[in-house]
C-alpha cells in the first residue's frame, strides 16, 4: 500500500497525537484525545463532527488561542516548519493573520463594531506587510470587490452593523485572505446564514480557493457542505478522528459505523418515507470518558473488545483510514453504494 500520500514531506501542517483537556471545577474534560493529521499546501480539508467532538478545539490550539482552562496536554503541532507549541506569543501574532487566518461562525463577534470596515481591513493588511496606507487601502478595496461586494470604496467607510450577515462574512473572508495566508481556517462559516446566503458564500469560497490556492480547513457539522468544497474529510467523534479519507472514500466507501450512521440518519429529500434510522443513544460524557471506543455505546455493531480497548487506525484504502475494530474481521469498506438520488 502506498503511504506516500500520508508522509509529511510537502506538508504545511502536521499535528501528531494531540491531546487537549479543559480543567474545569467539575473535573478534566478531555476534549481532544490523540488526534493526528496533516495538511498539504493548497489542500482543502473538511473536519466534520457534532458538538463536543473536539473539531473546533484542535484548531483553536493550532492558532494558540486556547483559552483558560483549556491546555494542550500532549502532542505536537508543526506548521510550515515551525513548532507552534513553543512559539513565543510575539511570533504567534505574526503567524496569525499572515500565515494562518480564520473566519468564524458569527462574523459580528469577530469584527470590531467601533471601527469602519476599511479601518479594520487596512490595519490587518499593514500589520503584516510594509504597505503604505494608500496602498493598503487600494488592496482592501480590491479584496472587497474580489469577494463580490458592490461599491467597495463606499463599504470601506461603513461600520459592521450596517452590513447584513452574509455581507459581514464576505468582509471576514476578504480580511482573512488579504495577506495571502498559507492556511485559512473556516469554523462553521455558514452555520448562522440562510441557505440562499450559504450558497453564495460557498460559491465564493470555491472561487477564492481556485484563485489564491490557499489551503483551507473547513470545520462543519454539515456533510452536505463538505462535498461542495473539500478534497479530504475527517470525521471526529468524542475527541478522536474515527475516519478520514477523500470525499469519495467517505461517501461511497464508508467504513466507520459512525460515518455510516451520520450519512443514513437524515431524510434524503426524496418521495420515500421509510422510517429514519437514527443513531440511538446520547453523546458520551467527556468528563468521564469510558475505556475503549468512544462510539461503542451507540454503535449497533459494537463488540466486546470495543468496550475495552481503543481501536487502532486501520488503513482501509489508499489514504483512507478508519478507526474501528470491525476491520479486524472484515476488509474495511463495504460500499454504501450511491443510493442518494436527486429529489
Amino acid at each position, binding site marked *: 500500500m502506498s503511504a506516500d500520500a*500520508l508522509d509529511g514531506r510537502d506538508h504545511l501542517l*502536521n499535528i*501528531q497525537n494531540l491531546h487537549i483537556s479543559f480543567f474545569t471545577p467539575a473535573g478534566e474534560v478531555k476534549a481532544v484525545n490523540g488526534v493526528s493529521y496533516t495538511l498539504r499546501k493548497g489542500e482543502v480539508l473538511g473536519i466534520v463532527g457534532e458538538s463536543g467532538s473536539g473539531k473546533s478545539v484542535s484548531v483553536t490550539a493550532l492558532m494558540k488561542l486556547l483559552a483558560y482552562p483549556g491546555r494542550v496536554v500532549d502532542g505536537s503541532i508543526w506548521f510550515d516548519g515551525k513548532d507552534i507549541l513553543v512559539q513565543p506569543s510575539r511570533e504567534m501574532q505574526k503567524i496569525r493573520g499572515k500565515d494562518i487566518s480564520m473566519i468564524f461562525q458569527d462574523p459580528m463577534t469577530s469584527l470590531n463594531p467601533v471601527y469602519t470596515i476599511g479601518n479594520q481591513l487596512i490595519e490587518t493588511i499593514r500589520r503584516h506587510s510594509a504597505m503604505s496606507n494608500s496602498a493598503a487601502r487600494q488592496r482592501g478595496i480590491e479584496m472587497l470587490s474580489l469577494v463580490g461586494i458592490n461599491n467597495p470604496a463606499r463599504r470601506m467607510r461603513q461600520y459592521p452593523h450596517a452590513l447584513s450577515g452574509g455581507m459581514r462574512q464576505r468582509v471576514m473572508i476578504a480580511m482573512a485572505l488579504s495577506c495571502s495566508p498559507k492556511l485559512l481556517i473556516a469554523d462553521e462559516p455558514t452555520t448562522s446564514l440562510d441557505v440562499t446566503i450559504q450558497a453564495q458564500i460557498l460559491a465564493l469560497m470555491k472561487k477564492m480557493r481556485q484563485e489564491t490556492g490557499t489551503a483551507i480547513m473547513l470545520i462543519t457539522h454539515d456533510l452536505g457542505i463538505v462535498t461542495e468544497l473539500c478534497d479530504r474529510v475527517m470525521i471526529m467523534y468524542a475527541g478522536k478522528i474515527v475516519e478520514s479519507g477523500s470525499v469519495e472514500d467517505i461517501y461511497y466507501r464508508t467504513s466507520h459505523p459512525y460515518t455510516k450512521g451520520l450519512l443514513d440518519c437524515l431524510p434524503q429529500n426524496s418521495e420515500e418515507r421509510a422510517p429514519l434510522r437514527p443513531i440511538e*443513544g446520547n453523546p458520551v460524557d467527556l468528563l468521564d470518558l469510558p475505556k475503549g471506543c468512544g462510539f461503542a455505546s451507540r454503535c449497533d455493531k459494537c463488540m466486546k473488545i470495543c468496550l475495552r480497548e481503543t481501536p487502532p487506525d*486501520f488503513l482501509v484504502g489508499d489514504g483512507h483510514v478508519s478507526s474501528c475494530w470491525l476491520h*479486524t474481521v472484515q*476488509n*474495511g469498506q463495504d460500499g454504501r453504494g450511491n443510493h442518494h438520488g436527486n429529489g
Partner: protein
Amino acid sequence: MKPIHEREKLTGELRIQKYTQPMSLMLNIEDIAPATEDQKKSRVKMRESTTYWQDALKRFSQNKVAMVSFGIIVLIAIFAFLGPLAAPYTYEQQIRGSERLFPCFAHPFGTDNLGRDILVRTMTGTRISLAIGIFCTLIVLVIGTLVGSAAGYLGGWLDNMIMRFCEILYSVPDILIIIILQISMKRFLDSAFPNMTLGSAMVSIFIAFAMLYWVNMARMVRGQILILKQSEYVLAAKALGASGRRIIQKHLLPNAVGAIIVTAMYQIPVAIFTESFLSFMGLGASAPLASLGSLANDSLSGLASYPYLMFFPAMLILLIIYAFNQFGDGLRDALDPRLKE
C-alpha cells in the same frame, strides 16, 4: 506536557504515521462477539444529580479566599454580638484611674481619656456597623426586588415611571440626603423617642439608606427580568396559560436569585463604609454611643501619643469591608450561572 527535547524531534522531515492493515490483527473469538445492550448501556452513566444550590455550595467551598472571608465574617459577628456580653465593662462605663491606658492585660485595646475600655467600645461599634449592613441588605432585598421585578415584568409606562424615579434618586448624592434628613428630623425624633440610645443621627442614617440603596437593586433586578422574560421557557409557560404571578414566582425570580443575592452582598460593605465615614465626620453615632467611625474620630486629637486608639477601629473597618467584598466575589463566582457548564 513533556519538555520539548523529550517530545518527538520533528524538524521538517516528518514521521510517517503508523497504520494497521485490516485483517492483520488476530483477536480472540470472544472479543469479537457482539456486546450486549446492558454492557453498552453501562458505559453511559448519569452523573450524581446536583441542584443549583449544591453546585454553588461546592464551588464556594472550593474557593479558599471566599471561605477565609466567610470565617472572618463569622468571627467578627461573634466578636460584635457575643463579645460585649462576656466583657466585664459596658461601652459607656468610665473606669476611674484607668484613663489613657496602653493595651494591657485588663484592657487589651487600651482605654480612652475618660477611662472607657476600647475593646468593648470597638465591639459595640462593630455591632452597629454590622447592624447597618444587615438592615440595609434586608431593605434592599425587599424593596429592590419588588420594585425591580414589577418594573421589568409589567413594562410600559409603569416601568418608565419607576425607572425615571430611580434615576433621580440615583443622581442625588446620598451624603446630602443624610445631612438634610438629620437636620429636618432631629427635632421630631428627639421629641418622639427621647430615650433612644441610637440617637437621631443614626436613625436618620438608617432611614436614608432605606430610601436610597434599593435603587441599585431595583435596576439590576429589572434588567435581569427583562432578559429572562425573553427566554423561551417563559414563553412556554405563557403558552400553557400561566398567570403573570406564577411566571414571576416560578420562572423569573428563581433564575434571578443568584444575581440578587450577589448584589445584596456587595451592598453591605458600601453601607458599612458610608456609615463609618459619616460617623467619622461627626454625622453618625453621638456620644456615648460608639461606632467604628466615631471611635476613629475620637482618636484624632491625640493621634501622635495614642495611635492605638485609631489603630483598632480602623483595622476593623478594613477587615470588615475586605471580608465582605471577598465574600461577595466568592458568592458571585459560585452563583453566576455563566460559569455553569
